């Protein structure tokens, strides 16, 4: 798409969408939201960037190698956090029993495993969205 108005507006809007997405991911255990919602918002902002500035710019921003790493690290991070529970002789994906820092309910640094898992899910969902889009567009670049 080659339109000055669209490009300018998208350039202004994308940081706010991504900021809101990151807020939703990080505050998933305090207010509404969570990994899937925040990851979907970040992924939607990346797709918006891709359809405005073209596939080449999008590939420069999120190369296939980076999204591959994010994809794998998201799920491996989840499993590793689950194994911490087994290591501390609790159960798989244990929270309080595994000895994570619980803090005070309502604070950002609280709830033990929940925000950590949420970050993993958010990274995973965002990279899935942008990879799906890039893979589908790859062969006909006139979108």
């Amino acid at each position, binding site marked *: 798409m080659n339109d000055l108005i669209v490009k300018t507006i998208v350039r202004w809007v994308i940081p706010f969408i991504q900021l809101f997405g990151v807020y939703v991911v990080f505050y*998933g*255990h*305090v*207010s*509404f*939201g*969570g*990994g899937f919602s925040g990851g979907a918002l970040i992924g939607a902002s990346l797709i918006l960037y891709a359809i405005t500035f073209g596939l080449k710019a999008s590939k420069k921003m999120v190369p296939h190698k980076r999204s591959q790493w994010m*994809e794998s690290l*998201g*799920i491996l991070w*989840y*499993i590793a956090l*689950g194994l911490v529970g087994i290591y501390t002789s609790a159960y*798989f*994906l244990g*929270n*309080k029993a595994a000895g994570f820092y*619980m*803090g*005070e*309910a*309502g604070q950002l640094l*609280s*709830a*033990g*495993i*929940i925000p950590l*898992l*949420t970050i*993993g*899910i958010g990274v*995973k*969902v965002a990279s*899935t969205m942008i*990879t*799906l889009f890039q*893979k*589908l567009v*790859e*062969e006909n670049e006139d979108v």
Partner: protein
Amino acid sequence: MKKLFVVTVLTLLFLILVYSVLEMPDFASLNSPAYNDLAHYYVANATEEAHATNVIAAIITDYRAFDTLGETTVLFASILAVTSVLMGKKHE
């Protein structure tokens, strides 16, 4: 004859479905079967046990964390399928 049979069966099915919809509990009713002891337990204890004020987050990533691992695996499998199908075209 066949048409009559089909119409009769479908009408019966329609009546059964309408009857079951009328028998459903009201919107946000306290007597609904979904509002059982488990819901009470989560609402009462999630903030204490998981230290999260968002009860839904506590359920998804603490009580049912293993299910969420399954969901993440589904995402991974979907991206794997798309990538393998669209990559295969290029190498031919």
